[in-house]
């Protein structure tokens, strides 16, 4: 085989290897979760959401080019008190019947730093909640686990991408009881996202 034939083949192989992978965040093991915390006079309201889906395109050779969208089913938000749970899902608060999804879609990454398989970045994107879309910047930690999918889901080969993010939003920015109940429920909501996505290799 001539060198002129080999070079395009090597280029093609490199391009395929370096292509971004699409990670699916619908977790078959159900551990993906988003935790939320709101301050309230008697005790802080702690809850979590498990209905997480979405895809993220991540290239370990070029993490700065990461794009994607993570969606949380509003109805999956749960707090341990049944009355608070009803209020949370009801029309006065999240109105899950009208706004069934909470989402974050990336626009750009800044301050990208990679150390071994861990990348940190400030991710700017559109956060949509309660029918309001707002651009926010979130510090995100990506952990790329090559060939680890099989350790988690037997009979499957592929990579895992773990995303962790801690940030806060103001419910009033999303028209959730703006200017109301501030003495009962803090306007600031602390969010903590811990999710793993899988990219199956064929």
């Amino acid at each position, binding site marked *: 085989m001539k060198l002129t034939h080999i070079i395009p083949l090597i280029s093609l192989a490199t391009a395929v290897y370096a292509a971004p992978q699409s990670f699916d965040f619908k977790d078959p093991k159900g*551990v993906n*979760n988003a935790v939320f915390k709101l301050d309230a006079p*008697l005790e802080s309201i702690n809850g979590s959401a498990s209905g997480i889906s979405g895809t993220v395109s991540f290239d370990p050779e070029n993490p700065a080019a990461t794009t994607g969208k993570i969606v949380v089913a509003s109805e999956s938000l*749960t707090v*341990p008190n049944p*009355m*608070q749970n009803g209020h949370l899902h009801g029309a006065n608060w999240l109105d899950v019947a009208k706004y069934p999804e909470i989402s974050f879609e990336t626009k750009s990454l800044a301050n990208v730093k990679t150390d071994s398989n861990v990348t940190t970045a400030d991710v700017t994107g559109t956060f949509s909640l309660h029918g309001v879309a707002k651009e926010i910047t979130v510090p995100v930690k990506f952990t790329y686990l090559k060939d*680890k999918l099989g350790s988690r889901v037997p009979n499957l080969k592929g990579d895992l991408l773990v995303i962790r993010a801690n940030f806060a939003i103001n419910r009033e920015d999303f028209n959730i009881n703006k200017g109301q109940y501030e003495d009962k429920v803090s306007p600031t909501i602390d969010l903590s996202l*811990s999710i793993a996505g899988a990219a199956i290799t064929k």
Partner: protein
Amino acid sequence: MKRALQILALVAALGVPTVWLATGANRGWTKTSEAVKTLDEVTGIEGISYQKKFLPGVDFLGAGFGGAAVLAGASLFFRKPKTNNQQ
């Protein structure tokens, strides 16, 4: 009837705080489920699931004492049964 209401009020006033103390003296609101964390060893993510568990809170305590007060108050509307004092 008066006596029965007084006994019920006493049972509520003593029983409710006993249950509250026995279940961990939760100083928050009553919960009907508890978050259980499980560690996914591959990803290091702590998964959260909820198991049904009744954890009475201060609202349970308040309702118990309130109920006891209502029962005790209601007992005042009943007269003591007359006893025949034949001297």
